[in-house]
């Protein structure tokens, strides 16, 4: 061992060459020091672990937001999201108007036996219908039970934490910035075309002009 010491220090610094077996002593010191410190083990079933705020435990479905666009199912690398739907026609709201059709969700299921927790489905959903929840205690005795149907996915939504507060030094979110700009703008001179009843229509139009 000691005859290997010079070879293990290719840099050949003066401090590295001072004493043969210095590395050996260092190794012993490291383990001894670790022994005197508190160990990092969480005693899991007795004490719940402290999970970071964005832990990927399980996926919750906020079914009210889902438009059955199928993007998530198509992007899932495992193809483990199962969606069934049918179209319904909504009668025209105004007399003489056109009938509209809309998608109605029949089944939404995620097979967590296949899911690899990549989070692509959540990223890709354009309507904010999928969320990460930190819950992780859903082991089953039968692998088929790992397919969570829509009710169960909806239940997980109650465990989704509020998003953590933004970093105070971070950039302002786009929506807030747009709203603030609109609020800070001095009232434009009265224009005949502007209807006071539709303030929402103003902002985007103004921005388009700028």
């Amino acid at each position: 061992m000691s005859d290997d010491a010079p070879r293990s220090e290719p840099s050949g610094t003066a401090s590295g060459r001072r004493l043969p077996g210095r590395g050996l002593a260092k190794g012993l010191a490291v383990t001894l020091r670790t022994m005197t410190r508190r160990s990092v083990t969480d005693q899991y079933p007795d004490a719940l672990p402290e999970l970071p705020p964005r832990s990927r435990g399980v996926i919750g479905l906020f079914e009210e937001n889902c438009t059955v666009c199928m993007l998530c199912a198509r992007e899932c690398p495992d193809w483990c999201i199962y969606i069934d739907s049918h179209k319904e026609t909504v009668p025209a709201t105004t007399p003489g108007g056109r009938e509209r059709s809309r998608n109605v969700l029949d089944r939404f299921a995620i097979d967590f036996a296949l899911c690899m927790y990549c989070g692509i489905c959540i990223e890709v959903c354009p309507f904010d219908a999928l969320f990460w929840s930190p819950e992780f205690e859903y082991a089953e005795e039968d692998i088929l039970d790992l397919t969570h149907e829509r009710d169960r996915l909806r239940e997980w939504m109650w465990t989704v934490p509020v998003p953590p507060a933004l970093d105070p030094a971070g950039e302002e979110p786009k929506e807030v910035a747009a709203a603030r700009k609109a609020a800070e703008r001095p009232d434009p001179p009265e224009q005949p075309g502007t209807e006071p009843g539709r303030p929402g229509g103003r902002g985007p139009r103004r921005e388009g002009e700028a």
Partner: protein
Amino acid sequence: MSDVLEVALRLLAVLAAFLVLPLLVGQAEHKAMAHMQGRLGPMYAGGFHGWAQLIADGVKFAQKEDIVPAGADRRVFQLAPAVALLPYLVVLIVLPVGPNGFVGQVVDAGLFFVLAVMGVGVLGSLMAGWASANKFSLLGGLRTAAQLMAYELPMLLAAASVAMAAGTLSLPLIVEEFEWWWLPWQAVGGLVFFTAGLAELQRPPFDMPVADSEIIFGAYTEYTGLRFALFLLAEYAGIVVLCLLTTVLFLGGWHGPWSDSLGWLWTLLKGTALAFVVIWLRTSYPRLREDQLQRFAWTVLIPLALAQIALTGVVRVVAQ
């Protein structure tokens, strides 16, 4: 009649020590190694900090099926664990723990006897490796043999140095002769003896014969159940024997304050400290490669042991 009773009692005491001490070392290894790695180790078995973990392990091993591979040399295969384990029991009988006959049985040429019998333990691994009809086992067995060849020599030389210093081969007499200045005088010999002993037990960092990442578990690959447990027990019994023997030869055995009444405690304390070092080394160092292992024995340990013998001789002659 009382003689027979006394012998029986002594043997019973040694047997109890033989069964309990290795388990204590094993449990200490579980816990110390865990904490050195920032873990907790076993926490549940027995309720308080997993104290009964090794008993639970023993029960588990006893329940398992005992398999002998079809191509194995049946008799040798089944005999090997006993050959590996029993020598350590025999050695424990002659190790003096305290003054005034605190020993299982006094043997005149104790040192010679102990070293000879300890060498037999390694035969168990060789038998297991050869009889298993498995290439990994065979590799492990041959590595064991090579390691035995390389490390038996420095171990014997270092022990011979102590025998020269004390002028006797009897273990109790060696301890009687011990003076405090033997510590620096025989320090190199002690280090060589301890290191070579570790290698002979195939303890990390000298565990090339069982290197699990390359040859599965060496000679013990095909073993299951109780026979496998016996091999593990042999390893820990070996640690106990090695630590006690090093204590007796190089650390002055029962010498210490109040050694008349507490001598046995001193021996055990020193042995425990050494056992901790064994665990500590295992946790701290990676395994030596086979060629490094051989080179270390032949180019470092043997010259050191020879130098120690020369030093011992010179001091003996000058001092007289």
